[in-house]
C-alpha cells in the first residue's frame, strides 16, 4: 500500500519534472524581447483605441512610434504635453510640429426637418452613407446633413447624439478631435474646428440666394451682412457660404444677431 503511494508520487513527480524542464528550455528558446519604450509610450497615449492615427489601436501606434515609422503628430487626441513626453521617450529632438490647438468636430448644417425640403420619403437603412447612394439622399439640399447618424455610430467616444429635429449634437467635452466622424460623413458636412471657436456658420451650401432659399429656409444666402458688421473683419466668402477666420474672430457675436436667416450660431461654450 505505502509502496503504491510512493510509486505514484514518484511517477507524477518525475513526469512533472521532465515536462517542467522541457517547458523551461522552450521558454528560453522561444523568448521574445519587447522594447520597454513601447510600454512607456503606451502609458502616455490616451488609450482610446480610436484608430484615428491609422494604426490598430494605441498599442499599434506605440510600436510604430518606437520603430520610427510613425510621426508624434499622428495622434489627434493626444494633448501637447503628452506628445512632448512621447518625443522624450523615443529620443526625438524635432518638436516643431506639435500642435497645441485642440480640435473638435462641428456639423456645418442647421437645416432640420422643419426648414429643409425633401425630394422623397426615404425608408431604407438608417445610415447616411446608404441614403446618399440613393439619388444623393432625401434632402433637397445637396450639401446638407441627412441626420441618420453615421457620425454617431463611428464616434468611439460617444460624443455625438441626435437631436429631436434630426441634427447631430456634439458634446464638446467628450469630443477628442480624432476626426473619424469627418471621414465617415458622406456629405462632408462635418469639419474639424479649433476648440476656442465660439461662433460657427452652420451652413455647407454655397448656392446662390434664390436656389438656396428654395431648398432650405436657413441656408446661407451670401448677403454679406455678417462680413460687413464684423469689427475684426474675420468673415470671408470664397465661392461658398460665409466662413469665419478663427485667428481674427473675437467671439463678439454681432454676426449672430445680424444674419437674416439665423444660420450663425454661438456654440455651447461662450
Amino acid at each position, binding site marked *: 500500500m505505502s509502496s*503504491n503511494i510512493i*510509486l*505514484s508520487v514518484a*511517477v*507524477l513527480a518525475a*513526469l*512533472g519534472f521532465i*515536462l*517542467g524542464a*522541457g*517547458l523551461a528550455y*522552450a*521558454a528560453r528558446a*522561444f*523568448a*521574445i524581447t519587447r522594447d520597454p519604450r513601447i510600454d512607456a509610450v503606451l502609458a502616455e497615449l490616451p488609450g482610446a483605441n480610436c484608430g484615428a492615427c491609422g494604426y490598430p489601436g494605441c498599442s499599434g501606434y506605440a510600436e510604430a512610434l518606437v520603430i520610427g515609422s510613425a510621426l508624434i503628430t499622428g495622434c489627434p487626441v493626444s494633448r501637447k504635453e503628452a506628445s512632448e513626453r512621447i518625443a522624450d521617450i523615443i529620443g526625438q529632438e524635432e518638436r516643431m510640429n506639435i500642435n497645441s490647438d485642440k480640435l473638435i468636430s462641428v456639423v456645418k448644417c442647421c437645416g432640420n426637418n422643419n426648414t429643409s425640403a425633401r425630394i422623397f420619403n426615404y425608408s431604407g437603412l438608417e445610415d447616411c452613407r446608404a441614403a446618399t447612394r440613393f439619388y444623393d439622399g432625401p434632402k433637397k439640399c445637396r450639401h446638407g446633413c441627412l441626420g441618420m447618424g453615421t457620425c454617431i455610430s463611428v464616434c468611439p467616444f460617444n460624443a455625438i447624439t441626435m437631436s429631436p429635429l434630426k441634427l447631430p449634437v456634439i458634446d464638446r467635452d467628450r469630443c477628442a478631435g480624432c476626426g473619424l466622424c469627418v471621414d465617415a460623413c458622406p456629405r462632408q458636412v462635418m469639419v474639424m474646428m479649433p476648440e476656442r471657436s465660439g461662433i460657427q456658420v452652420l451652413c455647407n451650401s454655397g448656392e446662390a440666394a434664390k436656389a438656396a432659399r428654395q431648398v432650405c429656409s436657413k441656408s446661407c444666402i451670401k448677403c454679406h451682412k455678417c462680413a460687413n458688421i464684423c469689427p475684426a473683419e474675420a468673415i470671408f466668402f470664397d465661392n461658398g457660404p460665409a466662413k469665419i477666420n478663427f485667428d481674427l474672430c473675437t467671439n463678439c457675436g454681432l454676426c449672430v444677431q445680424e444674419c437674416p436667416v439665423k444660420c450663425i450660431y454661438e456654440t455651447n461654450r461662450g
Partner: protein
Amino acid sequence: MDIREIMIVIISAVLINNYVLQRFLGCCPYLGVSKQLETALGMGMAVTFVMAIASAFTWIVQHYILLPLDLIFLQTIAFILVIAALVQFVELVIRKSSPTLYQALGIYLPLITTNCAVLGVAVINIRAGYGFLLSLVNGTAAAIGFTLAIILMAGIRERIELSDVPPALRGVPIALITAGLLSLAFFGFAGMVK
C-alpha cells in the same frame, strides 16, 4: 496495418462522430473563436497539433509508465499534466512565430488545456484499445473534424454578422442555434459505416 481500418477511423472521427457536433466536446473554443475565418483556421491548426501530439504522448505514458507500474488510477492526472505542458509549449511557439494569431486567439489558446476534446480523444484512444499508430491517426482525425466544424461555423457566422438578426437573438443565441443546425446537418452522416 489495415488501410481499411485507418480509413474507417478517420471518417468516423471527422464526419460520423464529429467531436464537436456529435460528441459535443470542445464547445468552448468552438463558439469562442468561430467569429472570423482566419482565427478559426488558426485555432483549428493549434488544436490539431495539440491533439495529435497529445494522443501520441498519452499513449506512451499509458502503455510504458502507467500499465507496467500498475498505476492506472493516475491516468486522468497524468494525461492532464501532459496536455497542459503541450498547450503551454504551443502557446510559446505561436507567441514567437505569429504575434497576430496570438492576439487573435487570446484567452482561448490556454483554454485548449482544459478543453474536454483533447482529454476526450486521449481517453477514447485508450478505451477503444487502439495501437500507437491508430491513436495518432484518431487524434489527428478528431482534430481535423474539429477544424472542419469550426471553419464551417466561422463562414456562417461571418455572414450572420451582416444579416438582419432579431435583436433578442443577436450574438450568442444565434450562434448556438446555428451550431444546433450544423449538428443536425452532420447527423446525415450517421450510419454511413456499419
